[in-house]
């Protein structure tokens, strides 16, 4: 899932301090799971903003809501009769949701309330790590189910490099060497012969190198 972390409160306050009617909009999807932008975080941010404005002697309306998903028009449409009543909104959804909210209500100012970080897993509560970079052409079948694009610091296709030390990456001893993990996994699977076939250069045009991407699925379109 998409992982995000809350933006510093002072940054949000700085963005919204000159508005009189604010909507704090959370998302019940990915950002709820990583506890950065769900209804609970909306309530905390709204309470903090109300305390800030009251102590500053300002009368500002701060309302709270959370949508099932901010990356879908149908759910964003639930705000259509309310948005006119606000000067600005703070979206606690990921960058995708915040942009779609701004796109749908383009006469309103939308501020991001979280920093969207990566696609990753919940290792444990409060500990998330990256697993996928959405390169557009998955090679997990070749690498024992461990992605060298997301997990190797150099995105090497034929690793490990000389910076691998006792199974750790040279950039940080807390980061496991992806290629060491791949080697161990292929050994477990009895597929070490894959190391004898060099991986061909990757076509990066399906990644960000090809510009903003779009999926068109004719079989699904109505």
């Amino acid at each position: 899932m998409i992982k995000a972390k809350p933006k510093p409160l002072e940054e949000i306050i700085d963005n919204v301090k000159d508005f009189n009617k604010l909507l704090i909009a959370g998302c019940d999807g990915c950002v709820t799971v990583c506890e950065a932008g769900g209804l609970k975080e909306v309530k905390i941010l709204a309470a903090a903003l109300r305390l800030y404005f009251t102590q500053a002697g300002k009368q500002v309306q701060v309302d709270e809501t959370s949508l099932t998903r901010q990356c879908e028009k149908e759910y964003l449409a639930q705000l259509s009769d309310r948005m006119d009543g606000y000067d600005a909104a703070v979206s606690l959804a990921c960058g995708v949701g915040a942009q779609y909210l701004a796109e749908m209500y383009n006469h309103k100012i939308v501020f991001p309330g979280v920093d969207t970080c990566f696609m990753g897993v919940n290792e444990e509560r409060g500990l998330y790590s990256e697993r996928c970079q959405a390169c557009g052409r998955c090679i997990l079948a070749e690498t024992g189910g461990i992605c060298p694009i997301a997990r190797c610091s150099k995105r090497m296709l034929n690793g490990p490099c000389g910076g691998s030390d006792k199974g750790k990456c040279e950039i940080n001893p807390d980061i496991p060497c992806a290629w060491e993990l791949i080697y161990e996994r292929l050994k477990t699977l009895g597929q070490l012969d894959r190391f004898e076939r060099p991986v061909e250069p990757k076509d990066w045009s399906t990644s960000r190198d090809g510009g903003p991407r779009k999926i068109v699925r004719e079989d699904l379109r109505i």
Partner: protein
Amino acid sequence: MRLQYPPTVRIIEVPCTGKVDIIHLLQAFEYGADGVIVVGCMEGDCHYQKGNLYAKTRVKRAKEILDKVGLGGERVAMFNLSSGMGGRFAEIVKEMTNKILELGPSPARGAAVKAKAVRAAGEATT
């Protein structure tokens, strides 16, 4: 024990301090509290293993938020007491009351009432 402590404190019982969330602490200030103390069991003695440790991290985060919104993080504090430490509880209430008296009323007092009035005014004009 018939211990005396100031009537300034309003006690809200929870099954475990692990139930206390940041939102509860912030809402207490919205609804007019000038200070909040969270009193949990001794560290290592939680019946639910880690409830008081969760509360500790939430109180820490609430302090950071209160600092940033201009109320001051010293208005919220956590103490760890056992059920046999009634005397210390009375002392803590006295200490906290004196501390809050020194700090003065919360500058965000009545935030909830004001928010309600602002919303009602907004609805009347639309």
